[in-house]
């Protein structure tokens, strides 16, 4: 497990995205339902290229980063597990044969749906205050932003792999 440029870039992206989502965007006055889940976009970008196991692993680690960025999750570990499942689901969209442009956004939609279901489910179990509208708007924003970011990520990933840096 030699650290590669791609691995470093991925880790850096996840940390920066987690900080951005938790600190900078609310600070800039973006209302909470409109903050995209940038970390999930990164997880999906990896998962659609590498498959379910890799996606789940990246999702779990990225989820832990999100969990540890203050304010830490409560209960700790829940976000990590939900993101892991989301990465797993996104990984199922890997098709080496097809190069359709819609595959990555579809995987992101599925992963966002998993995250939304995880949040709503834990909200129901914990205290029963379910904010479906906020969750849905967050899902839509995430898919919209991901639709712009994902092609760039995939192209970068492929380029680095081709040059044996990944």
């Amino acid at each position, binding site marked *: 497990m030699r650290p590669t440029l791609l691995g470093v870039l991925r880790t850096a992206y996840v940390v920066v995205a987690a*900080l951005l989502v938790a*600190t900078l965007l609310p600070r800039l006055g973006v209302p909470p339902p409109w903050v995209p889940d940038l970390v999930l976009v990164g997880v999906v970008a990896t998962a659609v290229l590498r498959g379910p196991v890799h996606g789940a692993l990246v999702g779990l680690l990225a989820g832990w980063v999100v969990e*540890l*960025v203050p304010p830490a999750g409560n209960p700790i570990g*829940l976000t*990590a597990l939900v993101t*892991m499942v989301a990465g797993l689901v996104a990984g199922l969209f890997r098709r080496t044969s097809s190069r359709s442009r819609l595959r990555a956004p579809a995987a992101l939609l599925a992963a966002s749906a998993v995250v939304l279901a995880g949040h709503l489910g834990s909200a129901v179990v914990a205290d029963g205050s379910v904010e479906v509208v906020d969750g849905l708007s967050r899902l839509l924003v995430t898919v919209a932003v991901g639709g712009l970011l994902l092609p760039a990520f995939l192209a970068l990933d492929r380029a680095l792999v081709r040059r044996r840096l990944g």
Partner: protein
Amino acid sequence: MQPSAPRRLLVVLASLTLAILLADLAGWAGADRVRDVGGLVLGPVQRALSGAPHDELARVEAENVRLRTLTADQQHRLDELGRVEELLGSASTVGRRVIPARVVATDLSPLGGRSVTIDVGSRDGIRTDSTVVAADGLVGRVVAVSPWTSDVQVLGSADSVVAVRVGPAGALGTVSAPAPGDSESRPRGSLRLELVVPSAPVVGDLVRTLGSIDDTPYAAGLVVGTVTAVDPDRGQQTRSATVRPAIDPDAIDVVAVLVPTARTAPRQATPARGSGR
């Protein structure tokens, strides 16, 4: 075995995460330490990102918040003290032994009217059927007592009936909540006065309690309310009227419970004036 290495790593990490999650849900203290790690490492970055204010500014702001809290607290105490003073100096408590109390809970009865809970109980010497007054007049009577709190049936509850004297002449009557079968429509929150004797009340007449033996359940002479409308004469034997209570049942805060004082000394005979002896 190479392809299964990520799989094994995933299973180990996921189990670890699940274990930490369950431990946190079970209240394990180590989970807080895991949280602290995140704050320790990423907290400074977040501070820098959010542009934390300079120390001097932060100190002044904190001081400001502290002083504001202090002022609000003091103002609250002052208000409360003012209300107690007003209550203790009011006509409803003058010359009586009282236990000051405040309302800690209220409940609207489905049958109409309101019952409130006050923060004094049997340990403070409260007994059932004690009279409860506010600065403006009669509130109700104590119906249930627990060691630290008591429940008060407020004037206008469905089954509260108060014997009263009306006006300067002191005509006898009863004040109760408007009954469902009442022939007159009365504004919300007002009470129904029914005279016992065949005389007519006048709008503006003050309604005071008649009083009971040993001041339970109602002490004598407390203001209940004012007559606001007299029902038209439809040939009944006795007249009825609408009474606006002196207190606002929805905004009772500081009250006093009258301590019933039984009379022990026999009353002395007084010579009438102008008897010529």
